[in-house]
């Protein structure tokens, strides 16, 4: 298929189904229906096979579709790149599971959440102690998870659990796609330092996972998890974690305008700080643009791994400069002081990027080892049967 033909097809589709002015589906059609149309047209996951809603398109053509959708702010396309859950299930799920959930995932009718971290297994995910035991009725799960966003609404969860305690820690884990709406799953909101309860604790006490919902092999969960984590980092590096807070450009304007309206844009010391904050953000944007261009040319780009760490400095730095601009007003908070409240929220929420999904410290290890090829960390319990490790014995 020629690029021009594909573009024409996408434009025709959007013309028919999408109201570009009002940024919503055309008269009568709801979001759900629109997403179904996108799926049927093969635009949701264009690089996938036709068997699973795709069109076998090469990556660069798939990106053309995204671009057309982005140009009119339409949703539903490009999920072969962004939909963590669908991608993981496509890669590691049984056919039965794919039939059951893929369509729902791609039309946003199924929400999912992540059950990875535990109180005792944060940076060291391989030390999880939630157990899954095989029974005639499926896998029975027992344990406690934390840092789960969306757990209250999710119908399913990607679950990391231990299925063999007598082998070293990485070798006894399995990865599941667990139904959430069942007895034995207890979701409790976690009060965060921002005041939000974006995350939850999830207590699992006899929850059941059907056999068909095992992802990858029994005790092969660590490998599947790595794929899922790589997706997550990629998305965080592109700043998805702060999309709610506005794009890079909005942010830039907001720093400059904030200083201007505070009458401080002429302050030379502040100008240095604002410029540096904006520069870090713009440099990260340029890096991502270059990485995408390099990947489009078929070269693997090491830059993609840097985004999350870079974003951490950017987010903490932005909030610090905003506090400097606001001066004493940064003491304030609450709805009556929206600029201050926004700044303070950013200052705290920046930890979600510098801690969540692997701390900056873990992230630096990963970059040093996987990108730069430096020697691995010494892991004292790597080869111990998990049962004998400090994670169990304390």
């Amino acid at each position, binding site marked *: 298929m020629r690029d021009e033909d594909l573009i024409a097809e996408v434009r025709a589709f959007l013309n028919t189904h999408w109201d570009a002015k009002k940024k919503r589906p055309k008269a009568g059609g709801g979001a759900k229906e629109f997403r179904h149309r996108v799926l049927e047209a093969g635009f949701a996951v264009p690089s996938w096979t036709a068997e699973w809603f795709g069109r076998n398109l090469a990556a660069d053509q798939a990106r053309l579709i995204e671009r057309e959708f982005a140009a009119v702010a339409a949703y539903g396309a490009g999920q072969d790149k962004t939909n963590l859950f669908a991608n993981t299930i496509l890669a590691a799920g049984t056919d039965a599971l794919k039939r059951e959930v893929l369509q729902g995932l791609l039309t946003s009718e199924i929400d999912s959440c992540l059950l990875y971290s535990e109180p005792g297994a944060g940076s060291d995910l391989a030390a999880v102690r939630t157990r899954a035991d095989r029974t005639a009725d499926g896998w029975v799960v027992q344990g406690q998870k934390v840092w789960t966003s969306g757990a209250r609404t999710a119908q399913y969860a990607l679950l990391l659990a231990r299925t063999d305690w007598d082998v070293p820690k990485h070798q006894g884990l399995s990865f599941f796609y667990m139904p959430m709406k069942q007895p034995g799953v207890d979701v409790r909101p976690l009060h965060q330092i921002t005041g939000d309860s974006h995350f939850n604790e999830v207590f699992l006490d006899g929850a059941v996972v059907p056999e068909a919902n095992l992802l990858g092999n029994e005790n092969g969960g660590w490998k599947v998890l790595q794929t899922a984590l790589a997706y997550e980092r990629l998305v965080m590096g592109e700043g998805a974690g702060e999309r709610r807070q506005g794009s890079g450009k909005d942010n830039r304007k907001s720093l400059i305008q904030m200083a201007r309206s505070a009458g401080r844009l002429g302050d030379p010391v502040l100008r240095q700080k604002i410029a540096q904050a904006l520069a870090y953000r713009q440099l990260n944007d340029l890096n991502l643009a270059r990485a995408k261009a390099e990947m489009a040319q078929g070269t693997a780009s090491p830059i993609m791994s840097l985004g999350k760490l870079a974003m951490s400095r950017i987010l903490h730095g932005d909030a610090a400069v905003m506090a400097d601009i606001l001066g*004493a007003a*940064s003491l*304030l908070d609450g709805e009556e002081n929206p600029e201050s409240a926004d700044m303070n929220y950013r200052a705290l929420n920046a930890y979600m990027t510098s801690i969540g999904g692997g701390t900056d410290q873990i992230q630096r290890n990963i970059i040093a080892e996987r990108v730069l090829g430096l020697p691995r960390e010494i892991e004292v*319990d790597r080869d*111990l049967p998990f049962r004998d490790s400090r994670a169990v014995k304390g």
Partner: protein
Amino acid sequence: MSISADELAAIRASFQRLLAERGTEADVRRAIASPEGYDAALWRGIGDLGLAGLIAPVADGGAGGGAVELELLMEDAGAALLCAPFLSSVVIAGGLVAGGDDAEDRARLLPRLISGAAVGAVALTGEAGLWTPQDITVRAAEGRLTGVASYVLFGAQADVLLAAAWDAEGPAVYEVAAGATGLTITPLKTFDLTQPMAKIAFEGVEARRIAGPEALARTLDLGRIALAGEQAGAARRIFEITLDYLRTRVQFGRPIGGFQAMKHMAADLLIEVENATSAARHAASAVAQGAPNAQVMVNLAAFACADAFSQTAATAVQMHGGIAFTWDHPAHLYLRRARADARLFGASDLYRDRYLAALEAVDA
């Protein structure tokens, strides 16, 4: 110095005991949620121990302490995130009243402040919060104040209310009745939960002049030293909390304090914490001795302690990881206090510039 080393040790021990018993993290959380916005019981305990009179002159019924004693006790207060009007009432309001010249004012106001029966608050800066004399927008004329002050610590809780206001002599200190006509006190919603603030509008409020520019400047320096001590003490405590976690939290089969990244962050923080302690204590003794470089030391302590506490609290959250991202962990309480303390009397950039100016003056 009217307090001997032994007396000071005893006073400090009693304060530490009080804080250990009635100023725990649970108490802090209760105070934050209380309608008063501070820990009234702990405040009474401070009064009962006579600590509200720490720096008031012996002649006025105080303990006669100075900057050195104050700084040390503020380290303890900071470590416990004290939720009480010590800085506002004891240090600044008390300091201004004691620094005034009129015996009648002193006799009328000091006993209540010294006993802790009254909460004192002082409107010191304008709405811009720039902490320059020009930023004071309240003006005094014919015994009445007009203008707006903001970021007033314990402004809405005050029984004794003072305000910095311009008169012919410069920024002087006036007293207004807490419920006076023309006074509008608006509690502010603050990011730090441990120190309430208010905005205060004066519309021709009747006022009585109680001290001049010099007393104000002297008392503000005392306030800066107290705040520096608080920051040094708080920085040290959140650092110790972090060290404990590093020693006990196990990941990858060993305590995370064994990983170089954590070790190196901890070593760097130790320098900050020690810097803060040294800066606060030396500033206190420079002021107490009337040393020629006292202004150098006060300005140095102002930004060094602010930066040290801010950096330590911020890094402590990172070093803890996820657990410190929860409301129930104390790290964010320190972080909030650090961010507030760092702006309470003006930002570090301001003090860095003033420090250099003070050095130029000393070297000139």
